[in-house]
């Protein structure tokens, strides 16, 4: 076994040194009737690298690779080009194989990176502070709702109809057990959401209003009125951003008054990865920092007065507070946060703004081309790099048929909202800098053929 350094001589010598006759002497505490005498039956034995590689490659080859085809999928996970240096750097053993930085003297690399990450995230989201990452956007969203309950001591959350249905699903699962009440309905196929209606639902039991920006259909709307209304009623505004690249072009939720901003950071540095690992972003106003979940890195000094960084405010965390912790989150997404931070450092403000501009321009170009397809309507007035088309028939079958033609042409609303028949013709299309004009043309002409 190439990963096990002990050889037979080592094992014998070590057993002998402790007076044990055989390895079984060390397993006497396992009741004999449950102890297995050899390898579990029916499972394969160890295999050389080459054989494992062959097996895994065979599985990988059964998937249609996004980068090999015209690709227009989004709905919470976006394909962007990640510079080669990002992956190079996160593979440095000192980052990849380091532990959580509980021993700060020998973990300044990870800690300084987290401090930089927190600052970058806070600035992008428009928040005073940000934490050192969450699992992903959907769990960050629930944690924010949970935090709003702790702050407001109220237990009713209003979820905008534009919130990602999976995020709603996660909140529903948790709320069933925590006793939070969630108010939510599926979106309508309209160019704008009913912000006034949402404001009208705010009352004295409302802990928070949760709104996605841009929303699940790609719509972009001003959150200021919502923030004022929520705060006037003693509730918080939680903004959810599933596409942080958008914030290179759009005003940040924090600027518009959101109290907590959470997001999915996958767009930068991380890649699609069939849904995970991703990295949850979490920022809030300074006054709420002690109710924040997750790890925080803070600046301090060492015994010689040099600047250094440590994990801090851990009195909020489970390993200190046990059942009184703000959250049970422990291991989070350190390496993905690193990837995000490196990518953001390579971009810088100039690069992020430029990237956002290219995304928007490509999306506008695609929208203009696709709405020319007979029978297709563009739902959105406003959007960033994602918009919704209304097709003349169920979009699920079109998506499948496009995939058969090696085009990954968006996400059908039928997949996201199986119970909402009136959404079935909706198709959410994302267009990033990775799409080419030829890709758009291929998508449009194939769509034309399928709808003809």
């Amino acid at each position, binding site marked *: 076994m*190439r*990963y096990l350094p*002990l050889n037979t001589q080592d094992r014998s010598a070590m057993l002998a*040194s402790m007076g044990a006759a055989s390895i079984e002497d060390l*397993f006497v*505490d396992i009741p004999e009737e*449950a*102890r297995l005498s050899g*390898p*579990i039956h029916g499972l394969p034995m160890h295999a050389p690298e080459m054989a494992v590689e062959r*097996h*895994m*490659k065979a599985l*990988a*080859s059964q998937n249609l690779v*996004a980068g090999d085809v015209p690709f227009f*999928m989004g709905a*919470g996970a976006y394909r962007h080009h990640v*510079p080669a*240096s990002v992956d190079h750097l996160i593979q440095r053993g000192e980052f*990849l194989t*380091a532990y959580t930085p509980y*021993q700060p*003297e*020998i973990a*300044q690399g*990870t800690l300084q*990176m987290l401090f930089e990450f927190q600052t970058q995230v806070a600035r992008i989201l428009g928040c005073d*502070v940000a934490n*050192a990452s969450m699992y992903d956007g*959907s*769990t960050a969203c629930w944690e924010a709702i949970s935090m709003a309950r702790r702050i407001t001591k109220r237990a009713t959350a209003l979820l905008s109809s534009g919130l990602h249905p999976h995020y709603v699903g*996660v909140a*529903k699962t948790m709320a069933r*057990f*925590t006793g939070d009440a969630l108010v939510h309905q599926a979106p309508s196929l309209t160019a704008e959401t009913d912000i006034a209606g949402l404001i009208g639902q705010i009352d004295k039991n409302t802990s928070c209003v949760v709104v996605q920006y841009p929303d699940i259909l790609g719509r*972009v709307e001003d959150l200021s009125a919502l923030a004022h209304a929520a705060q006037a009623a003693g509730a918080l505004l939680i903004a959810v951003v599933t596409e942080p690249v958008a*914030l290179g072009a759009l005003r940040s939720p924090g600027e518009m008054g959101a109290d907590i901003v959470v997001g999915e950071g996958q767009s930068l540095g991380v*890649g699609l990865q*069939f849904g995970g*690992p991703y990295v949850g972003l979490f920022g809030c106003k300074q006054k709420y920092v002690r109710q924040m979940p997750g790890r925080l890195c*803070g600046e*301090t000094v060492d015994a010689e007065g*040099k600047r250094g960084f440590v994990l*801090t405010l851990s009195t909020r965390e489970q390993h200190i*507070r*046990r059942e009184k*912790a703000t959250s049970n989150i422990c*291991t*989070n997404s*350190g*390496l993905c946060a690193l990837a995000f931070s*490196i990518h953001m*450092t390579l*971009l810088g403000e100039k*690069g992020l703004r430029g*990237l956002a501009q290219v995304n928007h321009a490509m999306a*506008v170009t695609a929208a203009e081309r696709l709405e020319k397809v007979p029978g297709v309507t563009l739902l959105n007035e406003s959007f960033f790099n994602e918009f919704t088309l209304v097709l003349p028939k169920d979009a699920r079958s079109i998506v499948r048929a496009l*995939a058969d033609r090696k085009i*990954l042409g968006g996400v059908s609303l039928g997949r996201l909202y199986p119970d909402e028949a009136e959404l079935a013709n909706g198709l959410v299309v994302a267009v990033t800098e990775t799409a080419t004009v030829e890709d758009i043309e291929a998508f449009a002409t194939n769509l034309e053929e399928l709808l003809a």
Partner: protein
Amino acid sequence: LEEALIFEIGDSNRTGVDLPEAPRAASRLGGLERKSAIGLPGLSEQETVRHYTRLSRQNYAIDLGLFPLGSCTMKHNPRLNEKMARLPGFADIHPLQPIHTVQGALAVIDELGDWLVKLTGMAGVAMSPKAGAHGELCGILAIRSALEARGDKRSVILVPESAHGTNPATAAFVGYQVEDIPAKPDGRVDVDALKARLGPDVAGVMITNPNTCGLFERDLKIISDAVHEAGGFVYCDGANFNAVVGKVRPGDLGVDAMHINLHKTFSTPHGGGGPGSGPVVFSEALAPFAPLPFVERTEDGKLALIEEESMEDHHASSFGRMVAFHGQMGMFTRALTYILSHGADGLLQVAEDAVLNANYVLRSLEDVLDAPFAAAGPCMHEALFSDNGLAEGFSTLDIAKGLIDEGFHPMTVYFPLVVHGAMLVEPTETESKAALDQFIGALRSVALRAKQGDPSLHSAPHFAPRRRLDETLAARKPVLVWTEPVVEQAEAAE
């Protein structure tokens, strides 16, 4: 080797990327164009590579030396795993692609799940939890769902005092009352006390096995039977499964749910704090309540994804969705690669070598460090010591920081709480005898200094990138983001 912050060396007018030309297109941003500066510094590629390369060198890591962290299991991360996870067929596929375009990805989930089920002797598995603590949550939700399904409103979860901090946090997070169960002097759960507490209000117990003292809970089957008899469920914290993988199946001991930390047992990298991955295996009783989405093999041999759209008939009891997509795919490919590399025989060897290495450490140091449970028999994959016998004024913390100067990461300290000044050492199976001997020598030397009262230990570490850091200051006046120094602004304004 000091490295400035990116905010101090970068500027917002520099970038390390070149972008394609944007086609001309009218803005459709709904009047919400960003106007204010964000304040993001950029660096050229070389500056970026240098910044992070230099930063990385201030970290300790498994690639640099032994990492004796009890209960955290820092083992070698094979590079083949990294390579496989980066195959475009895994790394570059979207979570919502049509099912027939991701059969290989679903096969990874299915195949890994199958291994986990067979290695644990259970009936089903939930793959989506994002980390160990998230897996615990999943297990507790399944237990609560099962109880609710039979109309049984129980409110208490019993947790032994040696449990991981996440256990009570998890139970509390979903509204359970948590009650402690004491340990016996031999470091194991007090079975009688536990049995005495069982009753119609007890939803279940959360137990760690091997426990956080590094001991196998011999009576787990007896406990399980008693809990089941009382109508409750047994949750097993699987953080330490690597000690017994292939040697015993938790399912045979009556466990109903157990999460498995893929990075602990199956070598996915810790990454300086994640990403983790915490699949949960279930007994027959709990499997129907497993969360969405999951993978199922259909009659024609294809793999189906069960999610909201397709759960209706035979999966109606699922308690719902815990995360946006399918869980930590990138960790699944790594873990499956590791499992296939070892095979059933190699995994058995893993458990044996992990336990052998831990006992070797225990027996090599019990003459200089107090080992509270050593006399009673072997340990599992962790050797536990206490601060009993150190010189006046010398603590476990001094030993930990002293070990840094010897070139090692400290062991886990002050955990478990059942032992005073606990030091929990887990060498793992991927350490050679030579590495263990070196570590034992270093710890022996530091322990002797602490027993003899060497005052220089109080100011350790001396040879790390930083001396002891002021954690109190950090918590009292939290500085969580960088802000432009006021002085410099004043200068700039001149």
